[in-house]
């Protein structure tokens, strides 16, 4: 059996007495795209921050390509890319220098060739010498994506990846996610765009109030809750039931 790229056991994150994420366990296999959905404030971003090593979990184990994120953080994080909803860039580095910096951080051999390919793929070729302040919101988002993909990560964590992109870029981004999954990358995609999740994801993880309330393929979730319909119908049904409890 193939070792999962991302293996999460009992992930819990507390902020004082507030339970942001509670006992979440799941795994993502190589080549698999898993959708992470939940209502606002469900704990999706906190979970992604824990998985990407930005904040430490209170309890639980996270393994990335077999490496424990707590024990070997640098080696584990070398295999992942976290693409946040808001592009976070250095004010005084040009677009190309951002990729140069990323290459130094991750030790990417022949980064210039890969950077050229990414700039071309994301239509940023003429923006390479621009500072972030000279780029539009969508361009910044594309640059952030380019930085994330430069080192060919085995695990890609995406938090609302399509925010700020135009329809053409959205189509390209969707194709890019699929291609990278076909190339063996594991993808965890958090989004409120349920049709996107339905289109791209093999399995879906639904969380509500920090707890995992459903996980599986859409058919499996339908079977779990005994209802038919689209992911949107299932989502409304699951989260409404959770809310009533």
């Amino acid at each position, binding site marked *: 059996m193939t070792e999962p790229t991302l293996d999460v056991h009992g992930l819990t994150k507390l902020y004082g007495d507030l339970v942001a994420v509670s006992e979440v366990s799941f795994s993502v296999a190589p080549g698999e795209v898993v959708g992470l959905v939940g209502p606002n404030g469900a704990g999706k971003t906190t979970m992604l921050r824990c998985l990407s090593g930005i904040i430490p979990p209170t309890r639980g184990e996270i393994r990335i390509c077999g490496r424990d994120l707590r024990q070997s953080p640098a080696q584990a*994080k070398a295999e992942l890319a976290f693409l946040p909803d808001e592009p976070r860039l250095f004010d005084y580095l*040009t677009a190309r220098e951002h990729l140069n*910096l990323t290459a*130094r*951080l991750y030790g990417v051999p022949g980064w210039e060739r890969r950077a050229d390919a990414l700039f071309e793929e994301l239509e940023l070729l003429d923006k390479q010498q621009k500072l972030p302040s000279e780029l539009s919101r969508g361009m910044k988002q594309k640059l952030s994506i380019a930085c994330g993909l430069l080192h060919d990560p085995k695990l890609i964590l995406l938090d609302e990846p399509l925010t700020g992109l135009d329809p053409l870029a959205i189509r390209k981004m969707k194709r890019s996610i699929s291609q990278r999954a076909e190339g063996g990358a594991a993808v965890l995609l958090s989004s409120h765009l349920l049709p996107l999740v339905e289109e791209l994801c093999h399995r879906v993880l639904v969380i509500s109030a920090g707890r995992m309330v459903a996980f599986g393929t859409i058919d499996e979730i339908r079977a779990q809750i005994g209802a038919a319909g689209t992911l949107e119908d299932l989502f409304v049904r699951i989260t409404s039931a959770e809310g009533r409890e």
Partner: protein
Amino acid sequence: MGLAAAAPFLVWRSARNWAAVQVRRLRNPRYLIATAVGAFYLWTVLFRRLFASGLSRPPALQGSWLVLVEAALIAMGMVMVLGGWVIPGRGAAPRFSQAEIHFFFAGPCSRRQVLHYKLLRTVGAAALSSAITALFFGRSLAASPAYLAIGFFFGFASVSLHLAGAALTREALSEHGRFGLLQRLATAAVALAFVGGLVAWALSRPLPPLPRELAAEPWVAYVREVLDSWPLRILLFPFRAPVRVMLARSGFEFLRALPGALAVLAANYAWAASSDRAFEEASLAASEDRARRMGALRAGRLPVRVSERGRRTWPKLAPAGRPELALAWKVVTTARRTANVALVPLLLGLGVPIAVVAYSIVRAQATGWGLGLAAICAGLAAVVAVIGPSVLRMDLRQDLANADLLRALPMSGRQIVEGELFGAAAVLAAAQWALWLLALASCAPYEVPGFPLSARIAVAAAAALLGPAVSSAALVVHNAGILALPGWFSSEVASTRGVEAMGQRLLTFAGGMLALAFGLAPAAAVGGVVFVLLGSWAGLGLYALPPAALAAVAVVGAEIWAALHGMGWLFEHLDITE
């Protein structure tokens, strides 16, 4: 690979690109003029002194004064370190930008690497601060600006590293839920007990006797003796070591002091870097808080958290009526919700010194807390009238970022300007009237020779008329400025730094003051004539102040009325893409 390779690249390229951007901006005449003014200002207040020669160069401190400066610097360092331990808060957590968090926290970097990066940047920032401080005080405080700069560097860096270590320790102790607060208090108590114990021990030792004379020399000798006494000599060593480098009088003294300062710096670095505690959450929270504050400032808003009580809707807005009153209501509501933040530094920073002066003048003639309170209120009212319009930027200066939305409203430019200004003017006037009423009420029971209650009422009435007129005129000047030259007066300029931003602020301040003086001159002349006519010729004395103020207010009112016409036109023709 890793942060060690990436960090120098990041620092160097960022600095180079920043410089290039600054140079490129000089192609714009506005930035060129502002940079020239800023550079001229820096030259006159800073560099000219540095490069001055001969007698014009202020002499370095000698002998007795040096001891006092040494004691003051040691005390300053102690206060900063103690504050870092006792005053809890996120502010002291290692600060990362959002980009640093994204690239480094989620990147292939260990927590220790990230911490070293931040600590080294802290040391670098200390070096920059030291250089600037040495430029200011280099010639007057120390024998050599270089000694001063290096000493300041050791001092700043040691304190900053110590505070970072304190923040990390505090975070480690407070990361476990409700026990955090108790643990935090316990930490503060332990730190205080430790320091208190040391101080008590030091004080229990025989200290040199206090001098009986009031002359400077015996006291200076006493301070020197205390600093050199056992065990204070050892206890104060961490604070004294960098100060000795700063104030070294010769190369030999400098070299002798250097190892001690280096040891203190190294010890603080090692302590901060040895912390293997989780700092990510505090840093992330601090970074998000900073981003929120910066975003609010750039948008011209005060970055405040509004309490539940502050969210109550008061005053209520009627569903129908003049639309400009709706804008004025918005301004008043904003002011009410942000007043706690904006007014405290304003009142404390400027009001208290003025009030103290006013109080001492009153006290020379009579005594009584009521008179003191009246003097304080009068001082604060004057501050609100003069400084209030600059500090409370809740009018068009705040809303210009939303000019496109305002332009889409079914209102004329003049109505929008009136709404924005009326709200701000009403807030400032209400504050002044409240202060004058309080001043009158508190001084009413007292007899003041030569200044009866009726005369006090006349003065207060005149001030209550003139103050709001002055603040309204200042509001008009500020808002007309931002409508005529939005690039010069924007909130972004107010919140940015650098030579060119300093130049812009100097120019806009000088221009605003000149315009205000020019605008108030006719009113002052009319008011003055009325006062002389009624006060001297008709013999009304101080009782001529209210009618004189009324005449002046009428002139200011006419000017504001005319200005509002022009400002309405400017608003309608404003290029909102600028």
